């Protein structure tokens, strides 16, 4: 109980401070009311970043879902033979982004390995490749962990259910649809939330590879945050963060309801 309050305090206090800052000038001088919010919404950079981030999230998460679920089903079916696969796919998550940066550069540079194989001199960080490359990085990192989570869910399904279904004459696909997926429902929310959190973490790769002003397609909200922070536009930053918080809160709420999560 105490720990709950402790946690809450440490987290809520900065949040409230941030909200407060959104109503004042950057150095805390004058009260400016909703001016910061108005500026944020009118700001074209914000609009671009928000659109990009939304697009990225809406593409990545379902993609990750499908791919990792597919892999999980395959691994589940292959059982013991796929031990090494689990480990292998898990490795990318364990490596800090900074460690990988040199390797990414070698792979994607203008005269890098990939260009060497394809023979073309594609600029992988410019449109139209930047976005897919970023999505690829995200998938690479997160497949393994999601795989484990799905597997956890799959292992949790009692064999009895499958047997019952087979007796009823259901084929593989129907079993998948009506037994597997619904049984995995508790997992879905967790995985969705985690995938969402991790999708925001992809900024580190985007920054390390694309610099401060990457291609317009992968200019994310975090780029904007760090630029606003660098120019001390903290009021804009906090206002935008508050807006984002509300939007996310609503979105997650919707997700809950859709999945009919127990409250």
């Amino acid at each position: 109980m105490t720990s709950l309050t402790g946690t809450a305090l440490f987290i809520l206090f900065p949040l409230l401070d941030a909200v407060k800052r959104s109503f004042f000038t950057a150095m805390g001088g004058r009260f400016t009311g909703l001016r910061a919010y108005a500026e944020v919404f009118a700001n074209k950079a914000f609009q671009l970043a928000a659109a990009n981030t939304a697009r990225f999230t809406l593409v990545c998460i379902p993609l990750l879902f499908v791919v990792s679920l597919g892999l999980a089903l395959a691994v589940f079916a292959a059982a013991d033979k796929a031990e090494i696969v689990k480990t292998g796919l898990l490795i990318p998550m364990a490596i800090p982004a900074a460690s990988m940066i040199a390797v990414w550069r070698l792979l994607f540079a203008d005269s890098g390995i990939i260009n060497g194989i394809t023979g073309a001199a594609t600029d992988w960080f410019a449109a139209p490749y930047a976005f897919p490359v970023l999505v690829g990085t995200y998938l690479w990192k997160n497949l393994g962990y999601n795989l484990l989570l799905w597997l956890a869910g799959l292992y949790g399904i009692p064999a009895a259910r499958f047997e019952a279904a087979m007796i009823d004459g259901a084929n593989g696909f129907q079993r998948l649809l009506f037994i597997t997926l619904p049984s995995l429902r508790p997992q879905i929310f967790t995985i969705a939330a985690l995938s969402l959190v991790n999708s925001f973490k992809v900024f580190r790769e985007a920054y390390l590879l694309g610099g401060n002003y990457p291609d317009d397609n992968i200019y994310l909200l975090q780029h904007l945050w760090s630029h606003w922070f660098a120019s001390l536009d903290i009021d804009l930053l906090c206002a935008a963060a508050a807006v984002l918080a509300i939007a996310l809160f609503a979105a997650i709420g919707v997700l809950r309801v859709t999945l009919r999560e127990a409250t």
Partner: protein
Amino acid sequence: MKTKIISTLLGLICVPVILPLTLLVLGSMTGAEEWRGILAADVIRPILLPTYPTLAPLVEILMDTPEFFHMFWNSCRIAFPAVAGQILVGAPAAWALSRMRFAGRGAVESLYITLMLLPFQVTMVSGYLMLDRLALIDTHWAVILPGIFSPFAVFLMTRGFAGISEELIEAARIDGAGAVRIFISVGLPLGLPGVLSAAVLGFLEHWSMIEQPMTFLKSPGLWPISLFTPIFTAESAGPGFAAALLIAAPPLLLFLYGQHDLERGIAAAGLKE
């Protein structure tokens, strides 16, 4: 037969996933001479298999760069206590959260998730103020303390505890166990996968944290290894890769170490029905 096909396919998928790591390993075994050749070529060749594999870059990092170890040790000093703290503080909180059946519980959880997604810059300033008042700036506690109260760990553990069925708890209560006892003997063992996940992921996060140490730690003697940024020229590429490999080693090993326990825990929980 079907399983064979599937596992082969899976194996194939593994290759591009592991490839970057192998490049890292190979790169750290390549000497400066070869690096010069590689980088000077028009196109970098696909497999960086060194013609003359050498442990020299690794040795250079291990032997000739004392600050590497110093920073490595600092990272350990930060990450382990932070993770321990996260579990100690977060587990009870997560337990409470998962057991409570009040109306807004879902909202609270959503709040946690939202908080995880907010820009860190926002919380850094007030964090700095708080830590400064506690006179903790320029000590390792400045990084450890905020880490202990991370919402990420709490979220993971809550999820882990949420799956435990009510009946078991009821049974324990009937047997006369108090709230704390229930937590320790029923909640923790069954929620172990969640706790372990939180621990492992929390470690990774603290191991690769950059902004917080940079802002809160002023003396270079306190810096963790995540702030070690090698510059990549032909001469320093080998050691740079070796350093990157060494930096990646602990989280990697932890993941591998914990993976099986994790799975076993999950399987055990699955058999509960």
